[in-house]
């Protein structure tokens, strides 16, 4: 087991390096350097740029040096000092903005995964056990719709119906009176009250896929002889299904987390924009629109790294649950 984890960690390292290169390419993408955009921005606001400040920025981020040196400076600052550059729109270090908003992104993504599982596992079991029943057809139908419906559209439609039927506008995670309050039981309750819409929206797309996977593996499992044998011996149906075939069918489900995570994080970005949640998504969007590229690159870097690390964790979880993976 320890050996396996170590090997997985070694695979992650080059992955993270390539991610950092891609993020740096993103920083460099728009025409004009950071300082040029910075000066332009100041002038637009009617300020005269300070020569010393510009020089300090240029030496800090190695801006008049070739791109690869800039990359190493950027990486060095990030790893040793936690400095990912500055955002000139927020007039704040990028790392501060990310630290402020990343926890909410992580929390929403994790809760969305949890919700997917809570919904998908029982439904998957039922539609496999009662294959070709009305229930199965209904699930398949909604699964199709769930796959076809892009996240932001679902958010719009749900928002509209909630507003029309209850007169309650879903904006943000907290009601106005709780936005600046410190954490308390009431605040958590308030958050849950507001959070269910984004959670449902983000979770839907993946749930359909999960149900399909679980249903498929479970159907294969149910045809196997040990199931027939157990049934012939008079084992209770509920115990029989939950204890053996479901246990086997859960394994491929865990390995889906790896490719589900990117979709969830991506969906979260868009849904947060529509529902105006205080996560990394809207900041990423704003930074790309105002060409605040250190911020954009930093967020891409963090989101991708988090996804990769999440995938690693799901791999370890899978190895822990499934001995076949561990000893391969």
């Amino acid at each position, binding site marked *: 087991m320890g050996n396996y984890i170590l090997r997985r960690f070694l695979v992650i390292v080059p992955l993270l390096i*390539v991610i950092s290169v891609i993020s740096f390419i993103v920083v460099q993408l*728009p025409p004009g350097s950071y300082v040029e955009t910075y000066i332009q921005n100041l002038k637009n606001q009617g300020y005269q740029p300070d020569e010393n400040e510009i020089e300090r920025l240029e030496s800090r981020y190695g801006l008049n040096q070739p791109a690869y040196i800039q990359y190493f400076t950027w990486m060095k600052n990030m790893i040793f000092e936690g400095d990912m550059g500055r955002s000139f729109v927020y007039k704040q270090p990028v790392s501060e903005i990310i630290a402020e908003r990343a926890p909410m992104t992580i929390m929403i993504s994790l809760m969305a995964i949890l919700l997917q599982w809570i919904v998908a596992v029982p439904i998957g079991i039922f539609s496999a056990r009662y294959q070709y029943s009305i229930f199965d057809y209904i699930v398949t139908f909604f699964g199709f719709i769930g796959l076809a419906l892009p996240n932001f*559209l679902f958010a719009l439609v749900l928002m509209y119906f909630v507003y029309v039927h209850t007169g309650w506008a879903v904006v943000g995670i907290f009601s106005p009176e709780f936005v600046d309050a410190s954490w308390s039981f009431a605040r958590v309750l308030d958050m849950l009250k507001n959070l269910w819409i984004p959670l449902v929206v983000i979770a839907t797309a993946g749930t359909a896929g999960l149900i399909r996977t679980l249903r498929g593996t479970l159907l294969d499992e149910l045809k196997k002889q040990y199931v027939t044998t157990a049934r012939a011996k008079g084992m209770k149906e509920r115990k029989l299904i939950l204890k053996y075939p479901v246990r086997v069918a859960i394994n491929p489900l865990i390995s889906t987390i790896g490719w589900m995570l990117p979709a969830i994080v991506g969906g979260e970005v868009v849904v947060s924009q529509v529902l105006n949640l205080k996560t990394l998504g809207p900041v990423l969007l704003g930074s790309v629109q105002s060409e605040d590229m250190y911020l954009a690159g930093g967020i891409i870097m963090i989101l991708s790294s988090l996804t990769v690390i999440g995938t690693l964790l799901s791999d370890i979880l899978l190895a822990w649950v499934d001995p076949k993976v561990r000893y391969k």
Partner: protein
Amino acid sequence: MAESKDSILKKIGNYIKNIFSKNKKDKYERLEYASQSQLIWYRFKKHKLAAFGLTVLAILYFTSIFAGFVAPYTHVERIGDYKYAPPTEIHMISEENGLRTPFVYSYSKELDPETFQYEYVIDKSTEYSLKLFVESEPYKLLGFIPMEHKLFGTGDKDAPVFLFGTDNLSRDIFSRILIGGRVSLFVGFGGVFLSFIIGSLLGGISGYFGGVIDEIIMRAVELLMSIPKIPLWIAFSAAVPRDWTAVQTYFAITMILALVGWTGLARVVRGKLMSLKNEQFAMAARAAGASDFRIITKHLLPAFISYLVVHLTLAIPGMILGETTLSFLGLGIQPPAVSWGTLLQDAQDLTVLADYPWHLIPTAFVIVTVLMFNFIGDGLRDAADPYSSK
């Protein structure tokens, strides 16, 4: 003897009959002579949902190609003083004459004395008949065919027909959806075509040659797959200059979608090539001295082309959703150019949505299109599988 002579004559007669009535040929005989692609087509036609999907999509594509004729207005035309006009109701039953041909009433705007909002009041004094091929101002269909008729309308400026209502700049949403479909419906083909080239090239190299190259390409694919797609789209779209023309932006978006989306295809191609290249027919070709290029294009490609087609069909809706998402976020197609994504941008505002819910109608078009592509993809997958029992 006489009997057998009869039966022989009968056989010959049947044979001649079959030649002259090709369609009524015995089913089995038809299957015997059919090529692989014909077999796929027969099976595909039997798949009800897929056939349905194909029909719906054909209608959608047709109407948006000929949107100039079908849509009563253009996507930028501001029609008089009809801001946020609700969808026009089409009536069949007249208050005086009972059942008659379809007609509409005209609207007029009035200020509500209580809420101080403008509301549209239907004026029931005149019935304006809906006419097919109604005369219009001269325009050029597809940019070169001079026309003076539109598909439908009342032919009267006082009674406009807004099937899906109008937006804040009093533009007809129905026309905008059809014209926006030109971008949204076709972005999938462009994107899939590009990612097909990248994916099959890299996947082909990877699968056929194996070894170190395979290792490198597959790691790259894994990497791209592990990065969330949407943030990557968003970041790349930062590189598209804002002052580009609509056509340039369109191609840039297609490129971005393809650059991020080729990975799945590369995997399919690689997997198929890996398993096929060791089949006996490939070995035989190699032993006969055929070049790698010839083996791939002549012997291996036909063996998995059907899988490619299925995969491509299922990739198109993803591309369509990608464009819609990007444009919705304001990073894709820029106004005044119109796509389904930019149309939905107007629906982002909850207050607008609550008062003028018809802004959600483009959603239905996106969903239907994506669903139909999925149906067709499923149908093709079943049809392309030579071992399926259906």
